[in-house]
């Protein structure tokens, strides 16, 4: 526990130093702040790994003079599972940030951004450790507010500040639901202590159901469930890339953590909980990836893909809950285990993809995939690393994304073969969802990688440069993590199964009876991955042998007889996904402006497409406009005289007093 406190102290220190140094326009502040985050991460990772390896649960209580508050922190396996990737990613993104922000150093003060970065990491750490509702909510707010200031780093741009406001409103609406959730929990159990909540359970199923719904909405807003995801595609592209990576890789997982933690409070789940999470998960997954593939902005695409991955995690949770409801421990373990593993996997490959996208933005100054192309030659490291992230996120073997998708597929297939029929139907639904999501993810990332890194540049850009060492090293480490998890899959059950059984409240005997098969499958799959690599190497050697001594020529791309190929005749990002967007036209509602070539000697023609967010346009904008209209009716109360406001306060107090003593 001392190490954890030291880690938090290091973060606070980093924040304070960043603030003190904010006057300087040099890069020192980045180095100091990043160093403190790295130190904090190392200090925090030691206890996290100890707990995960089966060490005792660490805890610390300290009185806190706030009503119902207590500084009560605890590190159990579930917290540690989330804490480890959070700290790891924080440290790597901080190192990356040093290189990424270097070009900004002369232009603006970097103190604030590092101040809020340290606070964000501190907030996430506290969210994971807090065992008191008041402390949890305070940490939750710290996380939300500091990330708001990080999103609005480039606040002078109008799109950025509007993204920041959308984020701030969304996250506080979510917090509102959480507030109600915690108050009801406190009233039901007479305590604000998570450990008390976990022991007691809720006795009436109606109340438990309502609390479950509150948790889904409240935590789902942070995690990015459809349709509460609306802030994600706005905030992620607006933030600096290392912050996007941290937000997408770690911060939205706090929503998943909160939901998982709440499940341990609510006692035995009803059947509809599992169905609800499964449906939300699959809807978020399919819609997220459909919207992702329609985006032209690289970082917006990645943000929507986070919605998809959160959907997969949620669907896994749903399958796990169904497994518990129908007393199928194997399904429960695979569902929960897959969800937990995907949390880790997603933080690795999404972090990697956002950082690589950041390098592209850094090098070219644009995020529009329709303008990019051919970067693999200029940026070989970034390109290869993005490719690893893309293969992993599509769930293709032999990388880590495949392992968690295999767990989901295993849960759904097990559900398919058992009775009752409802469970089999849930399994089928999940399997179709996973298949469709996998296929569409391949479309999305073939588009993203293909149009950014392959072919020829579609528009002349300033000579792109490869990312510097500080930016390269974090990406290499994240990619190594993706590969390492895939080939070390056989050891995963030892780490994950205890947490998954804690989540589902399953007895160890039940689990040890069913866990052999998945463990064996994971071992076989790792070996298959290894064989795949060996086959590839063997084929490469054969090819080298065949081509040695023969002439290897170079020519233009075959243009079917057209001898003057131009970069402009290439397929663009929009044209690549056009068949899919046409199929989902009813859903995407894409704006299309087509100016056809006219006349006998046509000169100009143009086509622009844009895909705004459906819920943003159809649900939230009209809704908030209505609210705005309603509030405008009350504007006569706002006269701008201080006396009047004092009067309002006085009147309110008198009314309350009268009500109290009636």
């Amino acid at each position: 526990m001392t190490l954890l406190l030291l880690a938090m102290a290091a973060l606070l220190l980093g924040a304070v130093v960043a603030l003190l140094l904010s006057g300087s326009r040099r890069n020192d502040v980045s180095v100091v702040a990043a160093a403190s985050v790295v130190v904090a991460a190392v200090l925090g990772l030691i206890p996290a790994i100890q707990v995960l390896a089966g060490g005792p649960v660490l805890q610390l209580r300290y009185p806190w003079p706030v009503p119902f508050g207590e500084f009560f922190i605890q590190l159990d396996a579930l917290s540690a599972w989330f804490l480890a990737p959070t700290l790891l990613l924080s440290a790597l993104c901080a190192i990356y940030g040093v290189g990424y922000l270097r070009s900004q150093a002369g232009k603006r003060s970097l103190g604030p951004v590092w101040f809020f970065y340290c606070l964000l990491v501190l907030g996430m750490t506290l969210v994971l450790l807090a065992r008191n509702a008041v402390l949890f909510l305070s940490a939750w707010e710290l996380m939300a507010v500091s990330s708001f200031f990080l999103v609005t780093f480039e606040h002078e741009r109008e799109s950025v500040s509007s993204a920041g406001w959308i984020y701030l409103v969304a996250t506080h609406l979510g917090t509102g639901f959480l507030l109600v959730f915690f108050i009801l929990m406190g009233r039901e159990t007479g305590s604000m202590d998570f450990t008390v909540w976990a022991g007691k359970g809720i006795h009436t199923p109606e109340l438990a159901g309502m609390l479950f719904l509150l948790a889904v909405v409240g935590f789902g807003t942070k995690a990015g469930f459809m349709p509460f995801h609306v802030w994600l595609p706005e905030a992620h592209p607006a933030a600096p890339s290392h912050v996007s990576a941290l937000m997408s890789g770690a911060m939205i997982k706090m929503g998943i953590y909160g939901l998982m933690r709440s499940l341990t409070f609510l006692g035995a789940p009803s059947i509809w909980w599992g169905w609800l999470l499964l449906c939300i998960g699959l809807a978020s997954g399919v819609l997220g990836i459909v919207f992702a593939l329609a985006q032209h902005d690289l970082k917006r695409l990645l943000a929507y893909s986070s919605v998809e991955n959160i959907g997969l995690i949620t669907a896994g949770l749903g399958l796990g809950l169904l497994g518990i409801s129908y007393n199928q421990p194997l399904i429960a373990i695979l569902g929960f285990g897959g969800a937990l593993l995907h949390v880790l996997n997603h933080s690795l490959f999404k972090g990697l993809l956002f950082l690589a996208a950041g390098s592209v933005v850094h090098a070219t100054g644009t995020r529009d995939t329709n303008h990019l192309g051919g970067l693999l030659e200029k940026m070989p490291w970034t390109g290869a690393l993005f490719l690893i992230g893309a293969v992993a996120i599509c769930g293709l073997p032999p990388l880590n994304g495949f392992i968690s998708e295999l767990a989901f597929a295993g849960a759904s297939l097990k559900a398919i073969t058992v009775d009752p029929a409802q469970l089999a139907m849930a399994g089928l639904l999940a399997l179709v969802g996973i298949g469709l999501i996998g296929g569409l993810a391949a479309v999305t990332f073939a588009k993203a990688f293909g149009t950014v890194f392959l072919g020829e540049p579609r528009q002349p850009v300033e000579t792109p440069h490869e990312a510097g060492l500080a930016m390269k090293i974090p990406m290499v480490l994240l990619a190594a993590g993706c590969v390492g998890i895939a080939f070390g899959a056989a050891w995963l059950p030892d780490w994950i199964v205890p947490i998954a059984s804690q989540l589902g409240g399953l007895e160890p005997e039940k689990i040890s009876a069913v866990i052999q098969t998945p463990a064996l499958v994971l071992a076989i799959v790792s070996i298959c991955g290894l064989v795949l690599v060996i086959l590839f190497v063997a084929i490469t050697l054969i090819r080298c042998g065949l081509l040695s001594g023969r002439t290897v020529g170079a020519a233009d791309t075959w243009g079917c007889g057209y001898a003057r190929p131009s970069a402009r005749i290439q397929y663009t990002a929009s044209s690549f996904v056009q068949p899919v967007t046409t199929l989902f036209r009813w859903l995407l509602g894409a704006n299309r402006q087509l100016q056809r070539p006219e006349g006998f000697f046509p000169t100009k023609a143009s086509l622009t497409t844009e895909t705004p967010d459906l819920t943003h346009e159809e649900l939230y904008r009209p809704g908030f406009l209505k609210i705005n209209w309603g509030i405008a009716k009350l504007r006569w109360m706002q006269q701008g005289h201080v006396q009047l406001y004092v009067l309002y306060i006085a009147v309110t107090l008198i009314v309350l007093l009268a009500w109290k003593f009636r």
Partner: protein
Amino acid sequence: MNAASFIPLLLALVLAPLLLGIINRTKALFAGRCGQPFLQTYFDLWKLLHKSAVYSRTTTWLFRAGPMLGLAAILMAVTLVPLGNYPALIAFPADFFLFACLLGLMRFFTVLAALDTGSSFEGMGASREVFFSALAEPALLVALATLARQTGSLSLSTILSQVSGGHWLQAGPVMALVLTALMVVLLAENSRIPVDDPNTHLELTMIHEVMVLDHGGPDFAFILYGAALKLWVLSALVVGMIAPDTGTLWLNLVISVGGMFLVAVIVGVVESTMARLRLLIVPQLLVGAGALAAMAFLLGLNK
């Protein structure tokens, strides 16, 4: 694992190119021509392996790695697929998910290699390939999941060896629907009529062939061989559903190989008697195949 368990793998490696020869001979027969020799694909492979290579200046290392990764993925997939009632080299629960993902890996790198050339033709083919296969993959998974529910097992080898005449008698409609869906997936995944036409390279309506326009020499040999293996494994799924279990391992093997040739003949007949669908209709066909498979699942829900 003994020497005999390598037999399906060896048969696939040796006989897969023959399937293409059979399809072409069937088509020639319908067209009233003599047609190519049965072994033409082997000759082509031999010729290609002895050629030198020419690469576009636009391309990068990815273009060279694509065909090799694709071949590695499909070789891995071959080890997972049983031949009729003869079990595969590697079998474990949920192995068909790995199988589907390996096909996905092969496709992903074929598509990226196509995009690497910067050619609009190849971009077009790549775009269609990823789109159609995104629709075909759920159909394949649901079809296999239906069989898994019918047999109560989760590995391709056990599923296909347990699907027997009894299933066809008791749940005939279910099996027929699954078979239809698998057949559609087979035609789509192997770029066959009515989804794609393997005969022409240069028309704007093509999918797979147009993606590999720029490959030549040994790289193209890898692609051609990979395509033959892909046809083999998907045909093996179909054969596994219909091949009867005679109780003798060797007889089963002979029947299954015969079944593979029969599937090739059927593909040839389909190609000779049908026109290629318009591209706008293809998604309907694939979604339809998925719907058929889902219907089969519902019909067979009460085993």
